[in-house]
């Protein structure tokens, strides 16, 4: 009980930078940030060996709030940037942070292909069913009847189901977390990072400013009633009865992780033979 702690063990606070987030007080993203830092400490990683790649949106501000390397790219393109980074530097731990607008709308195409490609990344999408940074427009996960300035009568368009898409496109790990349980969220993040291949974690992260109705989420979330499966068909059946508030891991697969062909050990000069007469 009185055993001394390991000398250089990093704690969650070592993964936080000293920048104060600009998120509204009460935003779920604070908890996600806290959860990420806890997870990185749990995984015994070092900040210089972790990169957080993001797009544009409130949640995408997160890289600078960590003490890791960060890449704050353009809207919707976090996944390709992270892919290039991870393929170039496979020894780094690469987290990708996005929101429901950045990730599922403009980033939708890259989402499909990132799941397919199965590069070893961890994709954390902070979903608040709204475009927060631009002041409250519907996002792909917004309910069809939610009224806004851009869609005064509601969009009338069926919501995007990210877990279904992730599973169908071949993600190797599919889970949902809730920012209201930062420790649970931290555990899921750590599990996602540990799991090889493309790990997708959707985090329900309420927006206090534009979706005050989401305060009710803490009553709606519940642990998923079943354990994760590695059988995509079983996972597919389960996801079709998902109420959007099941928390936990849905699918943990064994798909082959993306790797470029191994180097053949030649030199640039060797390539000249092809041009020589």
């Amino acid at each position, binding site marked *: 009980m009185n055993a001394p702690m390991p000398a250089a063990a990093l704690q969650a606070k070592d993964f936080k930078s000293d920048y104060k987030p600009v998120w509204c007080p009460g935003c779920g993203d604070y908890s996600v940030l806290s959860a990420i830092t806890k997870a990185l400490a749990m995984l015994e990683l070092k900040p210089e060996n972790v990169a957080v790649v993001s797009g544009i949106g409130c949640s995408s501000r997160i890289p600078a709030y960590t003490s890791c390397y*960060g890449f704050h790219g353009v809207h919707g393109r976090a996944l390709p*940037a992270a892919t290039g980074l991870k393929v170039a530097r496979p020894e780094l731990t690469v987290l990708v942070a996005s929101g429901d607008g950045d990730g599922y709308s403009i980033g939708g195409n890259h989402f499909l292909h990132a799941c397919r490609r199965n590069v070893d990344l961890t994709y954390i999408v902070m979903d608040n069913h709204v475009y927060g940074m631009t002041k409250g427009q519907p996002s792909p996960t917004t309910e069809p009847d939610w009224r806004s300035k851009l869609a005064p009568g509601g969009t009338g368009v069926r919501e995007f189901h990210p877990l279904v898409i992730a599973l169908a496109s071949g993600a190797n790990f599919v889970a949902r977390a809730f920012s209201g349980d930062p420790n649970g969220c931290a555990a899921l993040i750590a599990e996602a990072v540990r799991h090889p291949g493309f790990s997708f974690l959707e985090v329900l992260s309420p927006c206090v400013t534009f979706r005050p109705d989401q305060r009710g989420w803490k009553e709606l979330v519940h642990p998923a009633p079943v354990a994760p499966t590695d059988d995509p068909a079983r996972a597919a059946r389960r996801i079709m009865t998902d109420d959007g508030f099941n928390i936990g891991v849905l699918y943990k697969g064994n798909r082959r992780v993306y790797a470029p062909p191994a180097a053949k050990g030649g030199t640039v000069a060797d390539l000249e033979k092809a041009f020589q007469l």
Partner: protein
Amino acid sequence: MWLKVWPRRSSKVAAMRNSVSVALAGSGGAGVMTAGNMLLEAAAAAGYYGLMTRSSGPQIRGGEAAAMVRVAAFPTDAQEDRFHALAAIDWQNVGRFAAEIPLGPQSVLIGDPAHGAPPEVFLKSGARYIPIALKKIAAEIQGAWPNMVALGVLAGLMGLPAEAVEAAARKSMKKGLEPGIAAARLGFAQAANLGGFALQKPETSKPRWLISGNEAAGYGALRGGVRFVAAYPITPATELLEWLAPALTEVGGALVQAEDELASINMALGASFGGLPALTATSGPGLSLMIESLGLGVVAEVPVVVVDVMRTGPSTGIATKTEQGDLNIALYGMHGDAPHIVVAPNSVSDCIAATQWAVGLAESLQVPAIVLSDQYFGQARAIVDVPHRTDFDLERRRASPGESPYQRYALTESGVSPMAIPGTAGCTYTADGLEHNERGTPSSQAGDHLAQMDKRARKVSQLDPGDAWASVEGEGETAVVTFGSCTGPVREALLDKKVRLVSLRLLSPAQPDKLKKALEGVKRVIVVEQNHSGQFLRYLRSEYDLPGEVKSLRRPGPLPFRPEEIEAAL
């Protein structure tokens, strides 16, 4: 010295020619491209220089095709004013190539009488029709094809040694070698009866390569240190990417196929952020998609190279043909003021050095660089002198592990601030497209914006490219100013003339002092470019003071300039 000034050669040669251009055409399945390639290989084996371009109908298979081969005793990648011979296996739809294969009264039309007379569009040039029963001759040999007979005819016409043709056949043919060679010999024999266009012997047999512009650019990229490539296929850049895929595996890099150009540019940026020189290649439509992310590269100061193999535009345009229409978007496409590098190779061979240089500039200045190649260079196969091995000594300045807080975007005098590579302790930072202060923290302060804009501007504008900025050749009071693939025909037009050539290789940052010096004493400037609106002329006018009278010689693609057009403008 990075560049070799092309020696001025006299165009007047007694008796023999120093250059012959022939074309081979026919419909699908005739093996026109294969034979054209072999002719080029034969020329190479015989010690010549040369160039092959090709054209085809829109069909995926079975369409009409034409191979245009120029063989010369000196290095060139221009096309002559006229083709000396057009040999057709058959005439189906071959008329569509008429504008690309200009003939004259000195030219010969070789065709198989079994397929009827040549189309009027060729006959009206005054070319002489020589019927040769290619199919019948081929039928004499079991397993022989008419295209090999035609190959032999053309080779004989040019005076290529028979051994060279044989060597080419041995190199290229996987099956039917003996019948092929026999057929070629028969064709060769036919040519003996015709008045030829015999080539003079090449002056020296220097070591040469056979390479396409796309391969050259890929190879140049690797020489420059690129080890990550993101690829999205687009005509006419696809071969560049396909060449790089196994080449990267060979040397220890990676190529990832992206789902679209938005992904490919961002993959390259991500890999570069991770420390690996990175590149992608595309054409006009793809470059349009990449523009936003190139701006990210500029503001976040992440090096990246995009090779734009320009095609006829705008919009979908003519995918298989050339034009120099992407100058505007390459220079001015990004929103905001986003200084960056634009480089234009001016020969097939120069695609190597120009791309290598672009990689070095991107890395050392931590900025995106666009290489303006085009379909003409990209898909032409040329016999070139083995290029000089140049090492530009342009490397990325990296931050050492160390004292915090690390100022990623420190306001240095050169504008280049050391870049921390992930994995390095003590200097983590977040690269950002948001405007930022020296530390990299997003900032909306006027002072920070101005300071960073100045930094990014001087970083690029203070580049001293040395002599690599342009090819400056010749002397005279008239100067022709051009860039890219127009350079070849301009050079040929200026042979034996007292006219200067200035072919810009570095388009951004502009080099007004250097151009002023190059045009000292010039009273008349002719600006040559292959686009409709005169993008290069406007660029020159906006960045440079042009002396005296300025004339614009411009035409959109797809047809390349021919030396006589430029001569007429002088």
